[in-house]
């Protein structure tokens, strides 16, 4: 697509979409959001970029192939689930460590395995969607 306006706007949009996708990822679990929707928005950012600059350029911007991103995400999500083993809980039991309190209401923030799982989902969705759309774009 050879539109100067679109290419110029894409630079702004991509950054904005990407930040928004990370925001959605971090907002998840307690509020609407999470890894799946965040991953979709992140994928949209890269799709906009590939529409503006071509799939070859977009692949370069991604640095790693989308398939590998998806598999890494699967691995991270699995690790988050398997982590419960060391705490003596069944698979995928959420492990929470509250900083400055003991619950969602009182603590400043928390370290937990749920976010790690969500990051895994984020990467699976991002990688999965991008490997599909890149394949379609390169075909034509």
């Amino acid at each position, binding site marked *: 697509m050879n539109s100067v306006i679109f290419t110029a706007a894409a630079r702004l949009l991509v950054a904005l979409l990407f930040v928004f996708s990370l925001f959605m990822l971090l907002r998840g679990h307690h509020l609407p959001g999470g890894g799946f929707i965040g991953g979709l928005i992140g994928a949209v950012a890269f799709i906009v970029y590939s529409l503006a600059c071509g799939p070859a350029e977009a692949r370069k911007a991604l640095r790693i192939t989308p*398939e590998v991103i998806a*598999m*890494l995400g*699967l691995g991270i999500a*699995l690790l988050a*689930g398997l982590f419960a083993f060391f705490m003596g809980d*069944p*698979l*995928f*039991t959420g492990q929470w460590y509250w900083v400055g309190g003991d619950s969602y209401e009182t603590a400043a923030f928390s370290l937990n395995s749920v976010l790690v799982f969500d990051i895994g989902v984020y990467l699976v969705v991002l990688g999965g969607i991008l490997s599909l759309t890149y394949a379609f774009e390169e075909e034509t």
Partner: protein
Amino acid sequence: MSWVLVMPIAVPFVTAVVAYLARYYPAGRWISLGGSALTLVASAVLMAAVLDQGVIAAQMSNWDAPFGITLVADYLGAVMVVITAITGLATAIYALGEIPEHVEGLGFHALFQILIAGVTGAFLTGDLFNLYVWFEVMLIASFSLLVIGGGKERLDAGIKYVALNLVSTLIFLSGIGLLYGLTGTLNMADLRGSVAELENQGLVTVIAMMFMVGFGVKAAVFPLFFWLPASYHTPYFAISAVFAGLLTKVGVYALMRMFTLVFVGDVGFTHEILIWVSALTMFVGVVGAAAQTDFRKILSFHIISQIGYMTLGLALFTPLALMGGVFYLVHHIIVKANLFFVAGLAKQYAGSTDLNRIGGLYKSAPLLAALFIIPAFSLAGFPPLSGFWAKYLIVKAAIEIDAWFIAFVALLVGLLTIFSMTKIWGMAFWKPHPDGIDPTPDRAPPVVTRAMIVPIAGLATMTIVIGFFPEPFVQFARTAAEQLLDPSDYVTTVLGGQP
């Protein structure tokens, strides 16, 4: 405790991730092989736990049943997991010889491991929606494996396969939705009680039929089997062996589980239909095989015919029949995967799977001929091989309740199976090669044929062992059948102390 149930699913998933990252290196295939061996160990541990404690269950994420996802293993579930792991290991060895490097680079091993994880998950889950998810995992992985390597024929087969399987999962999913609307639960153990209490049993029977159709497509019973012979003869032999061994059996397992645990309110209606479906499946499958001249197409039609015996075991719904069904399930997976392995090696030697274009294998590969005889005659039900005991139990169960016609059909189909097997024997092994050459595996180095013959020999040994020492296996199948017919253990273990 709960990790015993998780490991047979988690190990292949982890293996898939690592094998995918190493897909361009020779290490990738060894990781896959090692992962398959570990899966077998994990499955053996699960089996030991089940033998020791009876039914075991675990609540994922600590969400209590019936709200969370439950993993549960009874005798049937455990034996299916073990047999899946055995088939997986055999295939991983076979793949060392057969799968070319560029296909490995596309992620063959990762997809294969995900397929095994999906099959294992379907056998272990105690949650209906989770079962649907495992079906999807299997479908995606198997579709990719079916078309991997490319080519018009494979794509054609893949589209037929995925389209018809999607229809089946949609029907299955609609059934799940309706059942959830009626009862408000998807936990299978919980459903048993809730479904029995419903006033509108007519609607339950309708939903039961939806499940029968959904699982029936997966299991390839008459008249829903047409996707199977259209697709199983195209992929790599290692892949078609896994498909032939495991995928349809997941459908049979799901039928067995749902129609012993949940849909038992109107056995006279649902299981009567299953009896006739089974009889027609057996007969149509074997007649279809008689018309084929391709090694793998004959075997594909025989899968269908054999599925009939297993569903018949469920349909007759007596302890003996279910016992025969479980025994048949286990015996068949070993034998069928092995026959597809043999077909692959026969092609390696003789250059084709078209029986009109090959021959002379008996003279040039006597070991392969001997190894073909074992699964082939076991399939046909020759004593003392494993298939004899399986057929014996089913036919005896049919005669016991005076279903003479069904028993007659089962025996007739056995006879026709021998006809097909002798056709392969005569055309591929005995008759001279039509090109007048001695078939040799000249296209492949000896290390390849060695990798391919090891799993064939291993599975053939298992067939012989089951055949000569059937007692422990029959005892095991008896307990499995008892648990299926009286699932009170299953229900209480899953639901814990709750009412």
